[in-house]
């Protein structure tokens, strides 16, 4: 994340331009969702200061386009969409993840890396449960780092599904993408995340297996 994210001043100015009634409405809609927005932002950009900037930028945008929100019962979905779009456009601006658009179109979802497959040892049952043991050795920070390593589109999909606990349909609606694409991004995102965790576990000496096939 760079320093391109709109500042608090934009939020200040955006809010100032609203009528008193709109301000009250924004407060009523946004304040109860602030914790959700911050958690989502944190799961995407990890650093607290960046997450705060992202939330501020989201609310600034919400103030600007407030007139376009028809159904206020969908405020959460609307705010999550703004936040996702802000995050993704920032990712693209940094152009670190040019490959995203390409990988979406590949259909090979079945042949992906699985941490379970790499670690479990079905023929050595008396060893207990190495894959569960591995998970218990991983810190929240390890898991967050793995999430951070994902290309933006996959990170958003996995965060909405796993961190926020939203349904595929809700995610499709937030990101304005088909259900099949949601499914595929979650599967690919998890696969990449698990591969990252596997490499970390290997570096930490938590697993003794050889390089996985994929």
């Amino acid at each position, binding site marked *: 994340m760079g320093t391109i994210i709109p500042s*608090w001043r934009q*939020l*200040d100015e955006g*809010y*100032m331009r609203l009528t*008193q009634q709109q*301000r009250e409405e*924004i*407060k009523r809609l*946004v*304040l109860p969702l*602030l*914790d959700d927005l*911050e*958690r989502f932002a*944190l*799961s995407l950009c990890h650093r*607290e200061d960046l*997450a*705060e900037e992202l*939330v*501020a930028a989201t*609310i600034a945008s919400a103030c600007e386009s407030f007139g376009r929100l028809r159904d206020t019962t969908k405020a959460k979905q609307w705010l999550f969409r703004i936040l996702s779009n802000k995050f993704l456009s920032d990712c693209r601006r940094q152009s670190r993840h040019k490959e995203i658009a390409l990988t979406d179109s590949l259909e090979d979802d*079945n042949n992906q890396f*699985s*941490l*379970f*497959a790499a670690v*479990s040892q*079905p023929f050595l049952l008396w060893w207990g*449960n190495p*894959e*569960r043991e591995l*998970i218990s050795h*991983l810190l*929240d920070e390890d*898991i*967050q780092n793995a*999430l951070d390593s994902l290309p933006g589109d996959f990170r958003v999909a*996995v965060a909405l*599904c*796993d*961190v926020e*606990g939203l*349904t*595929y349909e809700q995610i499709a609606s937030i990101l304005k993408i088909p259900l099949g694409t949601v*499914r595929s991004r*979650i*599967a690919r995102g*998890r696969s990449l995340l*698990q591969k990252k965790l596997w490499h970390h576990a290997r570096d930490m000496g938590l697993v003794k297996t050889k390089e996985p096939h994929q």
Partner: protein
Amino acid sequence: MKTINKKTVKTISCDQAIKLVFSYIDDEIRGTHRAELEHHLETCRHCFDRVAFEKLLKSRLRRLNVGGSSKRLRQRIDTLLEQF
């Protein structure tokens, strides 16, 4: 009430079961597919363990950042929105 008879549930392979695991842990499959997978899980230890593993990892992600945020953002937003 319509129930799915065990005898009519199709037997699926491990490969077919694995394809359904993510949808299953996300509670995104219903009806026949769900019944087929659950039937498979009753008889296949490997796939059962896989499901348990994916659920466990998902629960670790769910836990991220819960209650971990600072009060700073709320204070800044509150101050900003209340000044008008």
